[in-house]
């Protein structure tokens, strides 16, 4: 009789351990997903701020008309791009990076730096660009962590990730305008 009881307890113990492990893993996945949605929201906010800084530069009257138009157009594309990160969004952000790089030639940068308004706008723009880089890097780190975690068999077998779609890294050229960094 006591042998049966100890077997029952052993089985119960194993079940409890399995249950604990599963709920612990589920909590881990959930925590990662929370982190992921946070980094994505941060990236979104940073991209909007970069586009706004670009619009500000385009409207400042410090650039020539043609360059202003190119820049304003690229910034508008970025602001109007669909909120979820897909190929269209990445293309728009790529275009904005390129437009900023084209607009800010060494001559333009040095003439902008000579006026207080220009210095102000450039400062905001370069800090916005740096923050886009950080936000994208941190988001992609979170994506890597989530994807690695979700490849494990426990999570696939017990469907611990629920219906959350598998995340993808966000890829676009986020380099700061070449002549803006060189002080």
């Amino acid at each position, binding site marked *: 009789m006591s042998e049966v009881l100890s077997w029952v307890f052993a089985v119960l113990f194993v079940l409890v351990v399995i249950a604990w492990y599963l709920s612990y893993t589920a*909590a881990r996945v959930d925590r990662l997903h929370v*982190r992921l*949605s946070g980094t994505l*929201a941060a990236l979104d906010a940073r991209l909007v701020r970069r586009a706004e800084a670009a619009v500000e530069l385009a409207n400042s009257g410090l650039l020539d008309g043609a360059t202003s138009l190119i820049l304003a157009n690229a910034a508008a594309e970025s602001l109007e791009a669909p909120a979820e990160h897909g190929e269209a969004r990445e293309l728009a952000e790529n275009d904005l990076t390129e437009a900023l790089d084209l607009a800010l030639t060494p001559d333009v940068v040095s003439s902008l730096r000579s006026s207080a308004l220009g210095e102000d706008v450039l400062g905001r723009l370069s800090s916005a660009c*740096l923050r886009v880089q950080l936000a994208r890097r941190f988001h992609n780190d979170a994506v890597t962590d989530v994807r690695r975690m979700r490849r494990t068999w426990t999570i696939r077998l017990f469907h611990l990730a629920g219906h959350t779609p598998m995340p993808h890294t966000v890829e676009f050229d986020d380099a700061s305008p070449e002549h803006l960094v060189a002080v």
Partner: protein
Amino acid sequence: MRIGIVCPYSFDVPGGVQFHVRDLAEHLIGQGHEVSVLAPADSETELPDYVTSAGRATAVRYNGSVARLNFGPVTAAKVNRWLDAGQFDVLHLHEPVTPSISVLALMAAEGPIVATFHTSMLRSRTMQTAYPIIRPSLEKISGRIAVSEDARRTVTTHVGGDAVVIPNGVYVDRFASAPRRSAWIGTPASPTIAFLGRMGEPRKGLPVLAAALPDVLRSIPGLRVLVAGPGDPDEVTEGWPPEVRAACEFLGSVSDDDKASLLASVDVYVAPNTGGESFGIILIEAMSAGACVLASDLSAFSRVLDGGTAGAMFANEQPDDLARTLVDLLRRPERRAELAAAGQHRARLFDWSVVADEILAVYETVIEGRAAADFQPQGRWNRFLRGGSR
């Protein structure tokens, strides 16, 4: 912003990470942020008022060297109390993969976490063993910083994911304004060069310099070599030719002010390090002080010197090449002045004002992400589970 910084290494002994933490904390406090640092320290060690001691550190062999760390349940409780009392907006951990208070803080913390990786010599075997234990905690880090490209490679290969590279900071102005000392200033007939670092440690490269000196002295007999750093001169100079020994002056350990003055006074600062340098902050200090730098072509040094435009380089562990480059530099004052000016300009990129701004941008990004995530509704069951991982 309320910032909590955790330094895993004891404040009893000075070291690169400790200096980094101290300078960063002081700079942030100067900008008006509230900063608290948690670090191991003896009760006798005098601590700045922003540092909280996590108790006495024990010397442990870890990852191939002896580190002074602390751990154990009492320490864990201390870390928890510090976290609870601090209510930090962001927690900044240094070296999160050493068995120390950084790991304890990482396991206990709930809020936004930033981690800085300093080392470039993490052994993969250590990582493989530690991996399953530490992985769930590492996933809590939302912003990873590496102090150099080498440190970043360590993160990508061993930890996974990526890191942003933010170099160590230097107070450029402290070095730039250092007074020159006449005893250390060279003359055309008797120029001075400086070596800094632990003499007895071969990877600091003093033997390479010593091997190059006979050649240099043949061309420039009046050369004076100023050697600063801890170590026993008699032991180190054993087997050196007498003329080399006569050219060297041993200054012993020097204070920070003396170091700055030395770098500002000499004609050439030589950094013959043979390896194990992940960053080379001493080069930036020398550049800030306006010294002409001659360094071995380690990849870390090459990056600091911008591929040789902000300082001269020689082939690593090649005394012949060192001798040739050094003689050439000593004979051409205009070249030295050119390199020194380029170096001083480049050093500005590593000033604390620049570096701390980047670190603050990381804090802001991480906090913003966390705020957005917290906005989403959470069930009681979720909170209960997450509380379990606390």
